[in-house]
């Protein structure tokens, strides 16, 4: 993995996590399941890579975490979107759209 690939992946993953949590709080496994469902099983996220991203977002204040009980009665760490995270999601969504439009435009012209 080169640095640039990692950056790209990371940015995309952040966006996906934020989007997922915008639907409601969830724990790590739940987030990975939702991303898979929402992307209609097309995007295969390496499940472990989710966690560095979750913790990074928590440190930036975009998501917050607290311990709770999961659906099968186990202690689990639940993440939720903060107000700032919601704003960040909008920015990233807009950026992503512009980026993909630009790429599409180049592809069509080419």
């Amino acid at each position, binding site marked *: 993995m080169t640095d640039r690939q990692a950056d790209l992946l990371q940015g995309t993953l952040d966006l996906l996590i934020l989007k997922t949590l915008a639907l409601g709080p969830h*724990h*790590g*496994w739940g987030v*990975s399941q939702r991303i898979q469902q929402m992307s209609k099983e097309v995007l295969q996220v*390496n*499940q*472990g*890579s989710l*966690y*560095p*991203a979750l*913790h*990074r977002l*928590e*440190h*930036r*204040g975009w998501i*917050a975490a607290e*311990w709770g009980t*999961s659906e*099968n009665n*186990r*202690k*689990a*760490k639940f993440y939720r979107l*903060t*107000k*700032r995270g919601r704003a960040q999601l909008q920015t990233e969504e807009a950026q992503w759209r512009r980026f993909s439009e630009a790429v599409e435009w180049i592809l069509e012209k080419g």
Partner: protein
Amino acid sequence: MKPIMSIFYRIRIWLRSFLRPEAVEQELEMEFRHHLELEIEKSVREGMSLRAARRKALIDFGGVERFKEQTREARSTRFGENVVADLRLALRRLKKSPGFTLLTILTLALGIGATTATFSVVSGVLLEPLPYDEPENLVYMNTYFLPESGYDFPEYAVGSPEYFDYKNANRSMEEVAAVSTESVTLTAGQGDPEVVRAGWVSPSMFTVLRTPPFLGRTLVEADGGPDPAAVTVISYDLWQRRFGGDSTVLGSLVTLGVEIQEELVPSEIVGVMPPGFSHPGPGIQLWAPLALDPARTDRGSHWFTMIGRLAEGVTFEEADTEVKAMMEQWAIIYPDHHVGHGLFMKPLLDHEVGDARATLLLLLGAVGFVLLIACANVASLLLARGEGRRREVAVRNALGAGRTRILQEHLTESFLLAVGGGAVGLILAWVGVRALLALEPGNLPRLDSVGLDGRVLAFTAGAVMLTTFLFGLMPALQEARSNPGDALRDAGTRITAGVRPIRLRKGIVVAEVALSVLLIVGAGLMVRSFRNLLVENPGFDTENLLFARFSLPAAEYTPEGSVEFYERLEEGVAVLPGVVGVTYTSRPPLLWHDQEGRFHIEGRPVTATGPLCCVGSTVAVGEQFHELLGVPLIRGRLFGLEDQLPGAPGVVLVDESAAERYWPGEDPVGKRVRFGSDRLPWSEVVGVVGSITYDGPGIGFPTLYHPANQTPNFAARSRYLLVKTAGEPRALVDGVRGVVRGLDPGQAIASTYTMDEIQGRTLARPRFILTLFSVFAGVALVLGAIGIYGVISYGVALRAGEIGIRRALGAEESSVMAMVLRQGMVLTGTGLLVGLGGALAGTRILTGFLHEVRPHDPVTFLAVAGVILGVALLAAFFPARRASGVDPLVALRVE
């Protein structure tokens, strides 16, 4: 305030990563396991074998350790790097605006320093526990005489029947003790004979206080009783001073010359107390058992006070309730003695603090104001600085700097300022405590327990630093919340400054000025009051007077013998060079007050409540007393030699205030009065003399004089020799000592004072309060001026563009200057009005501290208004001059 919450949340998780890495690690472990378990369960539900499911889960997850490491990185690294960068940046910024940095740190330091120093003294005196085991359980007991008893003494001594009745009947005390003090003439050991203060106590005092001896033993129960053992325990100080710290002193015999003890029995030294132990009162050098006879039933005599230790599990309130109930019983059992008279108790600490409490609380209030002003000042300085930063923040915001990054930077800057201010404040506080102790002439109790108080330092530093953070962050928060584009446009194109933040700052300055006014009015009133005390005519000539106290032991001097001793002393001193005249008094004027005296005038109706009709303090004096002090004789005659002869008919002089109060429109001369009880003989009033402030400055209490040799026998042994000198009175002390040695080498002068020293002592507390108030007022004035200067000068800086336009449009320098000055004066005027209003309402609490100044003294109020306006004008003048000097072109180009 969402951003603040999220900041706290983030600080918390940062701190957690920093301080509790093992907990974070464990949580990570749990989180990963939880994920894998759910993944495995899912696969099993879909029909996979457990083993295959586990394998699939691990593969899908990817390298567990790798992701743990990545997660760790995500949590910690950025934090450390940012802190260092922010610190560097903040330092560079502060260095770039030294004026702001200096003013802020100075303000913080003054606030922290002054408050901590004063708080430290207050808490040392008022709050620091007494130096005994479980000191909160110690109580002090004494008696009261309410008017219904025929007397009116809020506090009076205890007698032995009362002591034994309480000791035997109470169920609240573990132990009680009787304590009193005596002057003891000591000849044993090294050095000249000296008179020391001694504790005459029941041996139970040592049980109550629980202080073990340093050497030997304390007094024990067997030493006490009606005929106590001839034993004594000495203080560490006396042991070192007179016995060279030699432990063989135990068992040796010393002679204690005491006024009250008729036979001289050598006492055996049985113990030495540890350094610092001194009860009751300061400077006690030895302890001997007080004779207490349970068989004694005379309830009319009172000669000691009591202390006690609450029994296990008994509260002060319970003990207090019990003693009150007991007194109701006593009033029924002893209707002749205990109606309106009985025992009361208070915590021993309250007793030792005494009347210093009011003084200290007043100072505490004043210094609280200083703290508030300092906080207001810091707030206004930081707000002003934030204002100047709006544009920079907006630009950086627009360039993509995270809101948190910018907040973090402001936080770091505030932190640096707080640390700087705190450090300088700590030094100021340390110096301040020492300065206060040096300033205090020793009339506050318990000063040895005063030290720089850590709790207090933490509190004040906390208060001021919180202000720093709050107001350091406020501008950044406001800015961070706004849309970067708007803010940028605003800051970039608007030439005039925004209105809203300035309004807040102006409010703060108005509050600050108002608080300063309150404090300065208080100080002004104290100054006026103190001046009145200083210039008050005491009614006599205070120049060149020396007082020397003597206390002759009863075992060596009969009443007649002591009269003779004093006559020969007078003759000997009179012929010393530099002596103008010699006489005696039972107490020097001004030194302490004695407002307990009562007397009766022949033929007057007794009051319903007792056998005596009138109040007045009494003094026993030699025949030359009034002449030497220059007190005028109004009518009648002064005392003559014949009045001092043994068996001479009782005579009395009254002062003018007694004459006016009790013989209005009458001539007191020839009338007869009687002191104390109705068993004593009548004395004839032979003259009226001028009033002097005998009981101290500001106390006009009727005074009656009687001849020194006519006082009851034992009191006659203790007197003050009064020497009027031609030059410096202290120079005569050695001469007097020589005369004493010639008369009786075993006697010593107990203490000496000059009138100047006595006046200094009586004015010491007002002077202490005045000095502190002046310092606080000065600090308040400086801080107020800084506040006004700060807000006006930042206003000018922000409005440089606007001023430039005005100038370009033809505004004169003088009109620009007037505009800025007007702004300053409006702020000050508003604060002044609020402050004066507050002072009108609030200075009443000073009434008890003021002498012949009304709390609404118009002179003070006007003077303060003048000073405040003057200082404000000065503070606004510099920014105004800068504003008038603005070059229109330069100012316009700035934008």
